[in-house]
């Protein structure tokens, strides 16, 4: 399988996931700076992604979620625009 971006580093994973969720799940910019009450928008988007792709819904960047995020894919968004 093709070479992939470096993994295993939490900071790298978080950045990669954020870009992935922006691109395919309409995650808005600067979510990590959000101070609104309620669940973190990044967590919500991770859950949305996990649910759509049939993964275990944890809201966390677990290894299975990261594995799917690194798979080559169609560029069309998974979430309705």
């Amino acid at each position: 399988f093709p070479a992939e971006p470096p993994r295993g580093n939490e900071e790298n994973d978080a950045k990669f996931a954020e870009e992935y969720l922006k691109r395919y799940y309409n995650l808005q910019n600067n979510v990590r700076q959000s101070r609104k009450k309620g669940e973190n928008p990044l967590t919500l988007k991770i859950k949305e992604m996990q649910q759509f792709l049939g993964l275990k819904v944890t809201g966390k960047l677990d290894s299975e979620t990261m594995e799917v995020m690194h798979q080559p894919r169609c560029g069309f968004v998974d979430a309705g625009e």
Partner: protein
Amino acid sequence: FNIFPGNKGWNKKELTYRILNYTPDMLQSEVDYAIQRAFKVWSDVTPLTFTRIYSGVSDIEISFAAQVHNDYYPFDGPHGTLAHAFAPSSGIGGDAHFDEDETWTSGSNGYNLFIVAAHEFGHSLGLFHSSDPSALMYPTYHFTEPSEFRLPEDDVNGIQSLYGARTAPEEPTVPEKPNDPSTPSTCLPNITFDAVTTLRGEIIFFKEKTFWRQISQNSEVEQHLISTFWPTLPNHIQAAYEFQDRDQVLAFKGAKYWVISGYEVTEDSPKSIYDLGFPRTVRKVDAAVYDDNSRKTYFFVNDNYWSYDEQKQSMDSGFPKKIVDRFPGLTKIRAAFQKDGFLYFFDGHHQYEFSSAKRRVTRLLKNNSWIKC
């Protein structure tokens, strides 16, 4: 399956396409063929027709481009995003763009253009991404041998919800009646099987919508429609194996499996193959067999195999491994079963008798050697 909200697809059945440019990775004739076959995936199950034009503007414009390419959805270099396509509408609607930074191929090295194009044309026709991991419209890429590709049921249901079923009969491959003269015969020299399993002493050979049933070595083989025996089982079973201790046969198709307990499909079927411990990168199982000698179930996927412990009901650690490492002489296995202590493996038109004790192929047999012709 999902369709684009508010988009009911094209309001005509005769669609045109045009190939604006070519990737240097493949011969032009290979690109033409991959694109043509990708459209055929959809025209086989709907009333849609696709006609290639060479000038003017077509409904579906096909191009290869890298990075920014005038549609606000720039490509991202090698890997990641491979291609994208737009829902039916005028202008850019229906158009399919392929990332030129990928390595395109008609084989399995790089990204197979036919597989990716078939997915993209699903978008061009109005299908959104599916959440069924075995569907063509699932977002991630997974290689399937083009000659073995069959449009999964989820995608058939999706596209037919927009355009209806094909009215003209498809090229017959398997007739509805198993006793029809055009039914594939097990005595054909080139017969291949989708899956093989034992079932309470019988041998079951799955092929498309039917299965052959060898009740005993001295009896004539019977042929039946799968739907007649097991209405809830899908056609085109891809793998199956019997685990006698539980009196069960597990039948696999895509990312799902069905449990036949005794002679009945259990009510909680189908289940997800990921519950067995497969990673999400696996989208289908080629073959499966329980080996009495090692007391393990082996699952075969491409050139790899997994070992499953039926007692612990979990995958053994350290897998997948290469098939050839455990089964010298074999690289791919399309169907398998065990009989009288030997494993029988099918690949293409060959059948191999394999001794687990000797760890080697002991005989090369004809595919239909079990059936009296």
